[in-house]
């Protein structure tokens, strides 16, 4: 059986869960803890303990700020408990660092989402090129396929990605190219 969250939260969850986990992990450098923080936050939403802003942008800001605060709370708890000073950067509190973590999370999430919609062969090749930064030669060796196959899969993947990503971009380009 498929589990679903209350209907207004389910869509938020689908849209933001992965991003928020990546973001929390950027702050906490602990994947399990990051997931835990984000899950507790969503649990709070399910209980209706917090009301969400209507406006899309404010809502996104609210989600990230809440998760950041919960992460920092975690860090403080850990510190008083264990009295250790660790690599958990206190400079996370700086706006720019939080901003960077948000942007990074969003970039990875969008890219992974798009890559996941590619056909299997293209996906593997592109994943290796983008994330493992392998050359065409290395990818060919790794997958035991010819370098020409790598090239054509990569080309196809990029063409498919372009179509998907461009849907996203439309609004921006319209904004920016208006004369």
């Amino acid at each position: 059986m498929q589990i679903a969250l209350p209907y207004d939260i389910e869509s938020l969850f689908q849209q933001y869960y992965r991003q928020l986990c990546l973001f929390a992990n950027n702050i906490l450098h602990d994947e399990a803890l990051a997931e835990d923080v984000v899950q507790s936050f969503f649990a709070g939403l399910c209980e209706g303990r917090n009301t969400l802003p209507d406006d899309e942008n404010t809502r996104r800001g609210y989600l990230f700020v809440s998760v950041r605060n919960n992460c920092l709370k975690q860090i403080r708890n850990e510190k008083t408990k264990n009295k250790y000073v660790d690599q958990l950067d206190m400079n996370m509190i700086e706006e720019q660092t939080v901003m960077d973590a948000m942007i990074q999370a969003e970039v990875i999430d969008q890219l992974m989402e798009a890559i996941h919609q590619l056909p299997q062969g293209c996906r593997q090749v592109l994943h290796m090129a983008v994330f493992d930064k392998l050359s065409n030669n290395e990818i060919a060796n790794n997958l035991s396929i010819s370098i020409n196959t790598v090239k054509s899969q990569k080309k196809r993947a990029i063409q498919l990605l372009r179509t998907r990503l461009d849907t996203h971009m439309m609004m921006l380009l319209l904004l920016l190219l208006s004369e």
Partner: protein
Amino acid sequence: MKNDQFVLVDFLVKHFGGTLSQTDKEVLQKMFNDDPSLHDQWERYTSQGLRSSDAEFWDRLDLDQARAKILHYASAKPAKRPLHIGGMRQLKIYAGLAASLAVFIGVAWFLNLRHQDSQVVPDQAYHYKNDVLPGGQKATLTLSNGKVVTLSEEQSTVKEKNGEELHISDGQLRYQPNSNPSEVANLRNTLKVPESGFYRMVLPDGTKVWINSASELSYPLAFGKSTRNVELRGEAYFEVAHEKNRPFIVSTTHGDIKVLGTAFNLTAYSNTASNVTLINGSIQLTNKNNTTKQIVPGQKVEFDGSAMRVSQANIEKETAWQHGYFYFEHDQIQDIMEQLTRWYDIKVIYQGSITRKTFGGSMSRSVSLAEALELIKRGAGLEFEIDRKTVTVKNKS
């Protein structure tokens, strides 16, 4: 928080995905000129690169497991405001009920609308009266005896006179080289693509043709000994099979295009000037005035019955439709709507005076009308209304 940094996100995604286009780069440059701090940020993000550990973490995240845990947490924690608990539960049940009712009504409405026009569907995400689905592969074929056959995507065979068989596979119509060309040379077929459709086919000589919405192509079942003649009304992209001694000639209302073997995009609707863009090879254009012009790859000729104008083409723009997306560049709203009109088979009404600014950008042709309008609306400062298949464009009030 400074939100303008978020404009970088989409560009970063494209940068890392390797799909940053020339237009994107120009836009970025423009943004950096306006706000040099964005440039520093861009440099910082791109030099950091992506961590493969993040990708692995993303891959490992299990949404169903997360849902189960969230529900578990939610029920385990004592509620902070016990007074509201009953209310909330009930609300949730009502909400659930309302949601399934909405789905039910939606389905009923959908079925009802389908009956009249399968392209008109309820708007699921925005605030429009209804939504319109994008076009797709559709066409009809008029056989030599005048009979009209609807071509579907499914594999099938259509029988012509003399036992000639036409095959449809992979969603395209294929003509085989004829065993006895002289017998079928006088038989003509016409492929018609309606508004909001497109179709691909292979002619008997192996030439591949992509036919766009509201277009028709007619051709003989076998080409003659000295030339290969077809007629086009509308837009098509040709990849002509090379034959040195038998030129391929496309006739349009405004003139003829003669080629040996090449790829080109031809737009020849009768109500506006025609244009042809050459991708590779060479073509010779003769208009109704008998003026002749030859162009090289990357060039575009605009022509009507009397005049011709050669310019440098943006090949990405001219062939975007064939790759499944819209591409706008220095286009006014009317030009953009013109393209949507053909693809969604809609009527457009302009209310008041509409901005004469020009816009650029691209988007997939698989989005619904409401999605497309939402994207355009935000950038262009316009408002849209959809009523069945009529779109009203007006300035933001």
